[in-house]
């Protein structure tokens, strides 16, 4: 596997009596989207701020393409960020002016920043609003511009904190597509979100932080498979007689139809025997989603 673009080792941050982040290790590889999930106050934003060089960790190190952003500010050339709760852009300037300014502030030459700004505005369908002050743009356009501001200097690493929050369905889907395309083009993306469906749609890997500690970190497929093997779903064509329901309850089957059975494949045959010869509609291994997993993990952690 290629060398990670972003590495964080043993990050620890305390604010007074509160241990906000405890011994967090994260890596982000080229072309990968890591969904970084957690409840409010779990330590997500604190971690993101440390990764972006805005918050000095009490312990631990961050490396952006091998460079420490706290000792070498030039390392920030490799990073673009959309920070949640921030405007990210100047509201008195137009999208074009913002992009040119931030492009230069991120190390581009003026002419290169201007050229790149026009390209991005065209690609993200903001060309028509290039000369409109940001404060007059819709929320979706402002959010798109925040992403463009992070992309203007073509960084290898993107930290996106709630990039689709508050967007209408169409714009949110467009943003998802763009984020996926960016990863396919080789960017390493850390995606922080409370929208589990967004994380599930985009992530290659998932890390869940709870009370300052990363309690889960693995591939999305692995995580879904690990949690999916726990139950079966059974549906019948017609409502079973009371006698059958009693038998099902005795075997630990829950629900009123569809029925849910927690157990292994062997025990499932006993359930099927109990419903025999009623016509079956569906028997399937239960699927799970990231939301369910997240709730289980932070509930049990």
């Amino acid at each position, binding site marked *: 596997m290629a060398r990670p673009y972003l590495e964080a080792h043993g990050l620890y941050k305390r604010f007074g009596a509160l241990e906000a982040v405890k011994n967090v290790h994260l890596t982000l590889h080229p072309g990968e989207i890591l969904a970084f999930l957690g409840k409010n106050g779990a330590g997500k934003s604190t971690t993101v701020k440390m990764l972006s060089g805005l918050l000095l960790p009490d312990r631990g190190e961050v490396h952006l393409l091998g460079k420490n952003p706290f000792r070498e500010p030039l390392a920030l050339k490799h990073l673009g960020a959309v920070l949640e709760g921030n405007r990210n852009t100047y509201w008195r300037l137009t999208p074009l002016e913002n992009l040119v*300014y931030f492009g230069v502030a991120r190390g581009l030459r003026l002419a290169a920043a201007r050229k790149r700004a026009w390209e991005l505005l065209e690609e993200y369908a903001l060309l028509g609003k290039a000369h409109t002050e940001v404060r007059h743009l819709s929320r979706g356009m402002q959010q798109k511009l925040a992403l463009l501001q992070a992309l203007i200097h073509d960084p290898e690493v993107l930290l996106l904190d709630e990039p689709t929050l508050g967007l209408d369905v169409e714009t949110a889907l467009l943003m998802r597509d763009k984020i996926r395309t960016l990863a396919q083009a080789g960017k390493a993306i850390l995606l922080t979100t409370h929208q589990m469906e967004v994380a599930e749609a985009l992530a290659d890997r998932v890390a869940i932080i709870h009370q300052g500690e990363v309690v889960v970190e693995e591939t999305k497929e692995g995580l879904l498979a690990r949690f999916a093997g726990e139950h079966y779903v059974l549906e019948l064509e017609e409502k079973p007689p009371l006698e059958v329901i009693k038998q099902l309850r005795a075997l630990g089957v829950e629900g009123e139809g569809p029925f849910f059975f927690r157990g292994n494949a062997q025990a499932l045959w006993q359930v099927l025997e109990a419903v025999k010869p009623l016509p079956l509609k569906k028997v399937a291994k239960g699927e799970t989603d990231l939301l369910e997993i997240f709730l289980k993990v932070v509930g049990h952690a």
Partner: protein
Amino acid sequence: MLDLFLAEFGRNLLSLRRYPLELLGAVVTLSVIFYLLFLGARFLAGPGAEFGGRLEAVLVGYLLWTFALFAYTSLSFGLMEEAQTGTLEQVFLSPYGPIPLFLVRNLSGLLTQGLLVFLIAMVLTTLTGARLSFHPGVALPFLAVLLGGYGLGFAMGSLALLYKRIGQLLGLSQFLLLFLLQAPGTGPFLLLPMAPGASLARGMLAQGAPLDVWGLLVAFLNAFLYLGLGLFLFGRAVHRAKKQGLLHGY
């Protein structure tokens, strides 16, 4: 760095062009303050009172104060505004680092602030009948005053970065600037920030005195000392703000 300067300068110009009333408001307010002081002094001194050469000296002092005031306050007001509007963290993501970026930002603001001071000078000379003799060499002591002003500005910027709401303190300390700029450029006053440069500029503009090379040297030594001190304090404040997570919010 030149590109950054041009980008910052462009941002300043856009703001002036897009919000001309802010510029006009500043010119009117600062001109009215001086004119009221001028009228008040005449009223107290009686109808036959004449300022003579003193009027030019007072006016130059006032213009210098206006210029120094921008140098002194612009960083702090900028930081407070950016913290409030939520762009401060994005500015801190610049690979140039905060100190070079804000230095360039100050430098680029010099031209727009120069325009403002020029407009105020035009208004006030028309209103008061004062005549200022401009010698190109006067730009040098002016520059020394501004560098010292930026030094103090970075020191106040440190407080703005850490505590955010320092508007009252900035307002009150403007009067301290007035004292510094009117202080005589001799003896222990040479150690005060901006005082040597201000004294030199006053002499050249109001009395037509020639440029004193030694005086200028002292003025620049003083300016770089306070600029260095201001940058040192600002660097410490950046470190502390990053340690305590103070870059976000207001």
